[in-house]
């Protein structure tokens, strides 16, 4: 195992000061599952959690997000096994929900070749200067935008119907088991026109003109053996995160390793090569520290042979770096020591804005785990939930 120079736990004095500041915070965890959504309200110390739910029992909820611009508005991407996809909106923390008047949907094509949204997969609030703007990514791959807080949605940019992009999207058979996805929609906090997104499959893409045009950003990323690296179709970024404290730095958990990029470089560096060999650097999720761009976390899974996509050897662990990927440390205190064959999906791990930072992840087995000290110790705060698809944290106002 690689080691690191910085300690995982923060200095005691800082932790105490952080705990005092945390006392004024109201952290909420937003848990989206295969059969509904739950909200967990934390006390000031993030020790006790009050669970609220289910919301939309029986709905497949792929993402539930709190708008950080108002600290009140929730958007939920939902569908059921029978019914088509939609988006629900709440402005009272889930006491009441209103369905979008026009959910994300592709343009109708008279020749019968048009695509249909199977589900909205990813929701991203736009720049702070655009208070009612949201972006959505769908399965199959599509990019949508709402300018009215999520009430009506329209196709965004030209990529949904661009012949080149249609080729890169591949077919339903080329994507993840429940459909190819557009995800990881990122807005640069310095510039609302600077956007990124990822596609599984289809690679990483960047716009600097507000979505009028996009260009690929795949240099340095590896692909499955035998496929050309310069073809976005072969690329499968699982989760991309921008560092809030240093927006020129992004981290990525890819189907083929863990990467970092420091802009303006266009080259991704595989930092996962420093992970322990017996664990590897395959996984779905990627989390960055809100205030320290050298710190990030992953939750590796078994990507060998037939790709079980479980925790390696049945021993789940978060791995953290505090030096931008030069070294990694295993963070498994409190987690099961054996026979825990979890998968944690790409949206199912997050950080809060506390100090020390709280980390959270949800498993395919319906367990929700939390750490109040940046991964130093883990505690299960909910179990028995349906398969967890996404976990987001938010600060209530």
């Amino acid at each position, binding site marked *: 195992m690689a080691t690191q120079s910085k300690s995982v736990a923060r200095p005691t004095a800082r932790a105490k000061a952080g705990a005092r500041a945390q006392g004024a915070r109201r952290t909420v965890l937003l848990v989206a599952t295969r059969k509904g959504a739950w909200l967990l309200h934390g006390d000031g110390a993030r020790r006790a959690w009050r669970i609220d739910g289910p919301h939309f029992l*029986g709905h497949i909820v792929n993402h539930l997000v709190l708008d950080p611009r108002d600290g009140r508005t929730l958007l939920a991407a939902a569908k059921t*096994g*029978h019914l*088509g996809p939609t988006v629900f909106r709440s402005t009272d923390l889930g006491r009441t929900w209103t369905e979008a*008047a026009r959910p994300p949907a592709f343009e109708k094509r008279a020749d*019968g070749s*048009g695509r*249909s*949204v199977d589900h909205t997969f990813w929701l991203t609030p736009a720049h702070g200067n655009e208070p009612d703007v949201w972006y959505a990514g769908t399965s199959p791959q599509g990019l949508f935008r709402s300018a009215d807080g999520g009430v009506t949605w329209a196709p965004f940019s030209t990529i949904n119907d661009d012949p080149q992009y249609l080729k890169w999207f591949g077919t339903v058979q080329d994507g993840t088991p429940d459909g190819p996805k557009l995800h990881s929609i990122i807005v640069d906090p310095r510039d609302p026109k600077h956007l990124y997104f990822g596609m599984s499959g289809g690679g990483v893409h960047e716009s600097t003109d507000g979505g009028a045009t996009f260009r690929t950003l795949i240099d340095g990323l590896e692909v499955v053996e035998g496929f050309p690296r310069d073809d976005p179709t072969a690329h499968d970024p699982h989760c991309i995160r921008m560092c809030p404290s240093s927006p020129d730095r992004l981290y990525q958990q890819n189907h083929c390793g863990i990467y970092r990029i420091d802009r303006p470089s266009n080259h991704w560096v595989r930092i996962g090569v420093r992970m322990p060999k017996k664990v590897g650097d395959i996984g779905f999720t990627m989390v960055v520290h809100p205030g320290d761009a050298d710190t990030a976390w992953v939750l590796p899974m078994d990507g060998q042979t037939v790709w079980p996509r479980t925790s390696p050897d049945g021993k789940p662990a978060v791995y953290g770096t505090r030096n931008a990927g030069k070294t990694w440390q295993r963070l498994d205190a409190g987690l099961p020591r054996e026979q825990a064959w979890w998968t944690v999906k790409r949206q199912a791990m997050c950080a809060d804005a506390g100090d020390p930072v709280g980390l959270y992840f949800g498993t395919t087995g319906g367990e929700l785990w939390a750490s109040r000290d940046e991964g130093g110790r883990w505690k299960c705060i909910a179990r028995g939930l349906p398969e967890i698809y996404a976990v987001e944290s938010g600060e209530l106002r």
Partner: protein
Amino acid sequence: MKVLIPSPLRSYTAERNWVEASGATLGDVLDDLDRQFPGIRFRMIDEQERMRRHIRFFVNGGQTFDLAQPLQPADELFIVQALSGG
């Protein structure tokens, strides 16, 4: 005509299982349902005018896959959720 609404869609109809709708074709009736219960049509019919995979329509007991099928005011339309797994 009388339309039977399946349980997953009754949140749109104030939990009513039978509602009244009118139209010369199945598509027209679904348009009328959407006027009365906004959003209900898209949950059944996608943006390319294709019936969603697990939604079925029966007119007077006979299944139809054609949104252009003519309907009469005395017909009964059953909207049914097909089995879709656990």
